[in-house]
Each structure stands twice: as structure tokens, then as C-alpha cells.
């Protein structure tokens, strides 16, 4: 099996993997990175989203060959309890979840949005999160959290 190299949360990573194996399996099964969640295996729910470069991708549907040399960010790379990302702080402040299983993917979609558009409108937040499914009905809290994070990041 070839060695595939990439950047994971700012650090160099290399795994021997079947090039057709999906990124989600490698992250969870080989590298112990558990924030991307399996939800459907078909790129339809967003629970497994990660950032590859500036793009949000479904890691359940992303073969390893396509991420060689790329820069991958998961929630583990967004921030920590000691140094949280503004989104992580805002999701706590707004209590923006019920079960929280979809939250990793939503944090990733939101982080990518704020990178390309630091001051989104509510409609832009909703559009950016539209491919992320939430079954518990915490959508409005999450939208509020993203808007709060945006305002904190613009005016710290």
C-alpha cells in the first residue's frame, strides 16, 4: 500500500493506505481522530465534514488519493478547551445543540464560512449550513452561535 502524506490539523501526517479507502475511515480507524462522525456514508448528512484546504468535504466520500499533499482540518484542529475557537465558545454560550452528534460537521461548515465571509448574514449562515442535517431541531441556536462567533471574531 502506498504511503499517503498530508497535513492534519497543522502537523505532517503519513499513512499507508489503499488510495481508494475513504478519508473518514482513515481518520477515525487509523489516526484516532473521532470528531468527524459517520452518519450516512453517502455525503448526504454532513456529520463527517472536514476542511480540505478551504473547502468543506464529506470525508466519508473522499478517497485517500484525493487528499495527498492537502491540508486537512477537523474539529480537533479548531481549538481546545484552553484555547477555544470563537465558534466553540459560541456553541457553548448559545447551548447550541441537543445530542451534538452533528455538531462537528456543523462547526466545520461554519469555520469554512467565516474564513471566506467573516461577517455573514443570517441567510448566508443558513445557506452555508444547509447541507448539514440536524435531527434534534437545534438549528436556530446553531445559527445564533455562528453569528455570535462572527461578531466576536470581527470585533474581539
Amino acid at each position: 500500500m502506498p504511503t499517503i502524506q498530508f497535513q492534519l490539523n497543522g502537523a505532517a501526517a503519513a499513512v499507508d493506505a489503499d488510495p481508494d479507502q475513504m478519508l473518514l475511515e482513515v481518520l477515525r480507524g487509523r489516526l484516532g481522530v473521532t470528531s468527524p462522525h459517520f452518519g450516512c456514508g453517502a455525503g448526504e448528512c454532513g456529520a463527517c465534514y472536514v476542511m480540505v484546504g478551504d473547502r468543506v468535504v464529506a470525508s466519508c466520500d473522499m478517497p485517500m488519493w484525493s487528499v495527498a499533499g492537502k491540508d486537512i482540518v477537523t474539529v480537533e484542529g479548531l481549538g481546545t478547551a484552553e484555547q477555544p475557537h470563537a465558534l466553540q465558545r459560541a456553541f457553548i454560550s448559545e447551548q447550541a445543540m441537543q445530542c451534538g452528534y452533528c455538531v462537528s460537521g456543523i462547526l466545520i461548515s461554519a469555520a469554512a464560512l467565516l474564513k471566506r465571509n467573516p461577517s455573514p448574514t443570517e441567510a448566508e449562515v443558513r445557506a452555508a449550513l444547509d447541507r448539514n442535517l440536524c435531527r434534534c431541531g437545534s438549528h436556530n441556536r446553531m445559527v445564533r452561535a455562528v453569528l455570535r462567533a462572527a461578531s466576536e471574531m470581527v470585533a474581539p
Partner: protein
Amino acid sequence: MTTAPAPKLPASLAANPKLSSWVRFTDEDHVAISPGKVEIGQGIVTALAQIAADELDVEIGRIEMIRASTATSPNEGVTSGSLSVQQSGRALRHVCAEVRQLFLAAASERLGVDASQLDVGDGTISGPGNVRTSYWELIGEVSLDHDATAGATAKIAARRAIAGHSVQRIDIPDKVFARPRFIHDRTLPDLLHGRVLRPDVSGARLIALNEAAARAVPGLVAIVRDGGFGGVVADSEAAAEAALKALRKGAAWSGGEPLPNEDDLAGFLKSQLVETTIINTRTAPQTHGHAQTLRRQYTRPYIAHASIAPSCAMAQWDDDRVHVWTHSQGVYLLRADLAIVLKLPAESIIVEHMEGAGCYGHNAADDVALDAVLLAKAATGRPVRVQWSRHDEMSHAPFGAAMAIEIEADLDADNEIVGWRHAIWSNGHAARPGRAAQPALLAATEMANRYPRMISSNPPAANGGGGDRNSVPLYDFLAWTITSHRLLTMPVRTSALRTLGAQGNVFAIESLLDEIAALRGEDPIEFRLRHLHDDRAKDVIRAAARRAQWKPQKRSGIGHGVGFARYKNTGAYCAAIAEVEGADDIRVKRLTLAVDVGEAINPDGVVNQIEGGAIQATSWVLKERVRFDRARITSTSWTDYPILTFSDVPAVDVEIIQRPEIEPVGAGEAAHGPVTAAIANAVFDCLGVRVRDLPITRDKIIAAMELAS
């Protein structure tokens, strides 16, 4: 002569009276609280921690909530029915009050100060003259290994500092900082992975396997076959998936059970063998002549739980003992079913809870636990983790039951209601594990030594009923007859889904009320208030109306509607007002709700549950319907079973009527019925047509328009 009744222990505590099974003081000045209820995304562990912290007078940060396990936890049955605060909360409040008293007595002895002069602050017990000790210093002097007594008195509401106030949920930091908390993210040493082969054709049975291709998959550990149950164990998820795919190619199936015609669910439900029960009757003191009878039929389809995570479990055998990790709603009930299937004494099985994704009732959590147990038999003592596919989650887990509801309302010459007949045709709404002589688990119907599929039944009226839940009107109609027809066949597997029959029944009752109010030319809120005598009911309706500025001026293309219910007729009161917009495609713009759960332990938690319930109900009403042809479930992906997305979600505004003196009840299921009805009534206000078949889609609206013209 009368005597005061002896004080009684809360039911959960009476069943599990030992104090130490609920609370323990641990090293490092912490308190371990061990409820029998489990976190299913509803925030219950936080609410219970608040209650315990309040009664013990410790900071909530000192409370460590222990996950339920049959090895150590009190047996509180199942976490369902919006009963956790009522049952576990009451028990914990009582336990902690008694524990506080016991420690105060010990402190009094040690410090030589009367207990009445002692105070507790964050676990430190202090008194006049600056004397002090703490719970932890006194651990050796107070035994909690005895039964609760009925004498302890909890704080009065005004003295509670934590319960009744919004606090941040204790599970949320883990979830935003990617610390493994879900069962899906946990691991065990030497963990193997399993997958189970399930048929596409509903009810088909596995009769033959060609194992050669699967055996060639690198990483395969075992192929497991037990009658019609087949699966694989491998050293990685990828290998297990590959082996399963190979196994599927060579599998042969027989039989199958035909499914109903999904376009005529009412026809199907009304043509089956049923068990008929008169749920309730009221007879008018005198007969009233009626001028006309309105007869209406309402339906709702099968609805999927569709949790965002597919069900998952882990199991590990040690000789003839097995340890199971599960996101089941009832660890003891699952254990009881496992004991039947495995023919083992319950003591040989430990079932331990770990969080899963949001759970809205009896999904596949219990099924996958048995899958893991059966596959782990082939793993020679190593633990096996099994995770279902999205496809299996959407087709093999139990669904919420389809319903047909017929109401006849007799109206007098003034269109006042003088008679009311409500009849329900539906499968039962519960086939949970652990309650019958036979198991309710899917693999138990597949194994060589197999059990028949358990036909769903309905919980008794005392527990809120099932298909009949919320079918008895809260309104003061002169006479009524409520009848439930429970199907004795079950081609589509059904069990408990959030609200059981309440969503359908409230939709039906509140839709017809709205129609009658319109017929009378009376405001639908005034009409409801005129027929209610319970002030708490009237208060939530008035509060929602005030908040929504009822009734906003009529605008073209916009409609408003109201719905009300008290969940189970004994639980939370909820009124909802919907604002919708549209022509033949409906968008719900805003939902305004008022709710009364008695004492709201964590008010923001209650708001969160009501918001979530309102949005989920909107999704059910506008989008959701399990699809099938005559042989198989076809809505097996998110494309085929769409749910509401961020752009579709309405604004939701919730007002809580806080009543600290009234026993708390749950909030998780209060909103679904009222929101469903409010949307349907708003659609009528907007478009002038009544859609009586859920979901309210473009097709249904066009059909209703054609019927009306």
C-alpha cells in the same frame, strides 16, 4: 377521626431504596450521582445534577454524573415518555435531602452544635463560632448503605438556588472540543468490528451463504451464522464492510411479508384484524338534538426515527458472561431480553449505557446490542463493535406507527358541539424490550431458535396510552366516545416514536375544532378558551396568543393557526401558533409557543427541548413519510427520506410559564401535537383548504384543493 396518610417515597426510590445506589461522596471532594435514566440528547443529566447540587448545597461542578449500568445503577426502567425529571428527579431530590440531613446530624455530633444551627455551603458544613467540617470529612461517620425513609423533606421552592435556573449543560464542552463521548467514538483494547447481513425484501429470511469471497477479505476474523442471522467480524470497519459486501453477493433469501399500499394507508389500517377498546365515554346529562354531523378522517404516515447516527453497540464475552455497551433507553430492559435470547441468568450480563445520537424513541439501539453480542461470540473474548448502515437504520429499525383517525362531531343549530366520536386505527405504539415473555430484538426473529416478531401493543391509559394518547378531549364537550382499534397484524415494524399517538390525535382534534370555529365564525382561540376550564391550559393559550399578537391582520399568502394540548392529558401544557406562507408549497415562517411544565428545572433546557420538538414536528408535517413498495422499504437514504434543513427551519419563539411550586414534568414531547395542528390550521387560513393527510406536501395541497372545488 382522620389520620394524615403516611408520607410515601417517590416511586423510583421505593423500587431502589438504598441511598448509596443514588449518591456517593468520592475522593477529591466530588459527589457521584447515579440515576437510572440516561442522556439521549435531551439534557437530562444536567437537570438531575442541578437537583442534586441544590438539595446537597454543593456547586454543580462537584457533581459527577454516573452513566447507567446494570452493575451499579438503580433500575428506573426506560428513559421515555418525558418522565425522567418526574421519576428520577423526584427520587434524587428526596435522596439528597435525606443525605444532607444525615450528614448534618453527624456534623452536629462532631461539632457539638445543634443541627438546626448548621449551614451547608458548597459541601462545607459550618455553624456558630466558626466551627466547620464537610461532607467529605464525615464520610467515615455516615453510612449511606441503608434504605431511604419517607421522612426527609426537600427544600421549599424559594430556597432552591440551582434548580429552576438556567445552567449550561455538562455534556456540551466534550461535544464541541471533540472529546470522545458518543459510543461511536469510544474504543476498547483489541476491539474488533462487526456487520450484520439484513434482507432488502421485508421479512425475507436468509437461507444460504456463499462464504468464499468474504473469506478472502484481508482482516476477516469470522463469519457468523445462526439460522437466518448472518454477519461478519473483522479487524477494521473497512474490512468488515468489505466482507459484508462479499457475503451479500452470495446470499440467498426466501419468503418475505407483503407491505401495504402506501398510497392508501387508511384503507389498509381499516381493513386489518383489530383489537377494539373503548378508551373513554362521556354521556350527556340530557339528550341534545343535533342539526348536522361533521365526519372527518385524518391520517399520518409511518415516520422514521432517523437519528443522525446509525445505531451502535459493543459487546465482550468472558467465558459465559457478557458485557454490553449500548445507547439503549433502558439498560435493565435490554438485559432482560438478552437473558431470554441467550438463555443466561440476568446476573451474567452487564449492560452499560453510553451516549448515542439524539434518540426519539425505540430505535435500533437495542437491536444492534444483540447483534454485537451474537457476533462477539465468535471473537474469543475480544470486544466487538457493531454499527448499522444508514440503509438498515432507515429500513430495519422500528417506525412510528401510521394512523387513521375518524372524528364525527354532532353540531346543534348554532354549530355548538353536542356529541363527539373519535376512532383510531393504528398499530400499537410500543414493542419495547424487557416487558414480555418474548424478546423484542430484531436478531431474535432471525436466529435458528427464533421468536416471532412481537406485535406492538399500547401502554395502558394510566401511562398515557399509546395509539389513544391524547385522544380524550380536554374540552368540555357534552358527550363523547373514544375508540381505539389496534391492529393485530404488523407488516411494517412499529414501536415507540416521540409522542406515540399524541401527534396524530392532537392534529385531528385541533383541526376539527378549528373547522367548527370557522363554521361558527368564532375566533379559534376564543372558541378553545370557552371550552376549557383548566386555568393552566387557558394560560398557555393566552400567553402564546399574546406573544404572537393574535390575530395578526390577514395578508395574502400568509396564514396563522393555533394548536393546543396537554401532553398525555397529565403532562406539560403547550400552545402553538404557526405562521405559514405559500401557495401550493408551504413554508412555516414562525412558531410561537407557550409551555407550562410546572417547575422548569433548567429553563433554557426546557426551551431547547420545545424548540427542538417544534422544529422536528415541522419536519414531520411538511416532509416526512416512510416510503415503500409492496416488497421493501424504499426510503433508505436522506435523499429518499428528506427532513427539514437549515433554510427551511422556522423562527421559534418560546415562553415558559414557570410554576416552581408544581411538580415538574418533561418537555420533550409537548410541542409535537400542538405544532402539527397549528401548521395545518395555518395552511387553511392561508389557502382555504383543509389538508387532513400528513405530510402537508404540494401534492396533498393540490389534492385537497381539487376535492374542495
